[in-house]
């Protein structure tokens, strides 16, 4: 065990770094996608609501692994053969696109729920003061919604962090892929996967703790 750590520790740590990089960018894009479709789902416009619903339904209805193959192989193939345009996606780019879309759809649902949990009177009070809809959303509704959403959002972030491992199938050298390599070299399956499991566990525990702190910080009932 110790031998593996000293010998392959740096490799595994670097792979963890790649996992975190991929998760980090995905979470940023997912937040933007989620916010966009979450708001689209609640505005008073049927067309917008339906578009948001379709997006969420499609992403939720397709396994991530299929989405990953589709983005990494399917789309460049289609670009080349149909539009005649050579699109090259790196495994990292394809991975980020997949995770962003996937996490974004779930975020959209969380954000929609969060917005709907804010009492109707808040929007009415804001509008009655002459604030436009989107300003009211940004300054009054979302800051309140975010507080109820934080546990679900962090939960979703953790799921996405774990989902990076699915992207090992398109060859991105994240933690699981690197670990496979280490196992191939050492034949020490048990030890390597135990180490990898513990690495995930540590990162996710830290994230959960951070979430708790954030949740407390943002609560306005604290005093």
């Amino acid at each position: 065990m110790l031998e593996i750590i000293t010998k392959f520790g740096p490799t595994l740590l670097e792979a963890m770094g790649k996992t975190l990089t991929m998760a980090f960018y995905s979470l940023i894009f997912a937040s933007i996608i989620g916010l966009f479709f979450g708001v689209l789902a609640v505005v008073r416009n049927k067309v917008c609501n339906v578009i948001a619903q379709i997006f969420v339904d499609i992403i939720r209805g397709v396994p991530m692994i299929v989405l990953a193959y589709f983005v990494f192989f399917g789309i460049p193939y289609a670009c080349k053969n149909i539009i005649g345009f050579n699109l090259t996606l790196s495994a990292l780019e394809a991975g980020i696109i997949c995770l962003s879309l996937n996490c974004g759809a779930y975020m959209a649902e969380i954000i929609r729920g969060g917005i709907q949990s804010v009492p109707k009177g808040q929007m009415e009070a804001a509008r009655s003061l002459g604030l436009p809809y989107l300003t009211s959303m940004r300054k009054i509704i979302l800051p309140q919604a975010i507080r109820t959403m934080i546990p679900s959002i962090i939960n979703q972030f953790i799921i996405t962090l774990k989902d990076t491992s699915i992207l090992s199938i398109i060859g991105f050298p994240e933690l699981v892929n690197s670990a496979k390599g280490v196992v191939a070299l050492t034949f020490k399956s048990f030890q390597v996967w135990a180490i990898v499991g513990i690495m995930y566990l540590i990162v996710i525990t830290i994230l959960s703790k951070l979430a708790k702190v954030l949740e407390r910080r943002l609560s306005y009932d604290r005093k």
Partner: protein
Amino acid sequence: MIANDNIKISVKSLYKDFGKTNVLNGISLDVYEGEVVCIIGPSGGGKSTFLRCLNCLEDPTSGNIYFDGVDIADVTVDINIHRQKIGMVFQQFNLFPHKTVLENIMLAPVDRKLLDKETARVRALELLKRVGIEEKANDYPHSLSGGQQQRVAIARALAMNPDIMLFDEPTSALDPEMVGEVLAVMKELAQQGMTMVIVTHEMGFARDVADRVLLIADGVIAEEGTPKEIFDNPQNKRTQDFLAAVL
């Protein structure tokens, strides 16, 4: 008393349906500058719906609402501009819980660029003083009593310097001992010449402060008159029944 003949807001045959339910069935009303109009009537009669149509929180099904010479019931009108001049106070206060009392009051004037931050702060403190709770300026709404919250809500609406104030049962959600402090603020506002439309169940207040009392039932103005006419000598059967039930 009615200060002059200027009409502040003029409603012409207003109808409002929710799907198949006809809630407002043709209401016309002129509210004059400085006038205090109290609206009373049975539950479900359409009082709130009518008030909420006045600032287009509900879109009227048909009819016109002239404010500042513009028909704000027209959906092509930029309602946000006009809403700045129409203050509204809700039964449930609806203060912004994530903002301090001061921030609640400053938010809209600053966001709408009516005042810069510093002026808005000074003005907010003045308003808080006027409603008698300047010491709560930096507290969050949840730490205030209902009566205090409603007074902040009034100050928040006044911060936009409105031409008219709408109140929808502003004291109905309050504990009895807090009703007085809110009514006192409203009465003072009325005496300072604010144009006000008030839906209320406080008959004593309506009698005391109103220039005109309307009874809305089944989506129409069943009767209107001075407080004396309505309370002492009601003509309409529905007014008589309503008053018999509440007094």
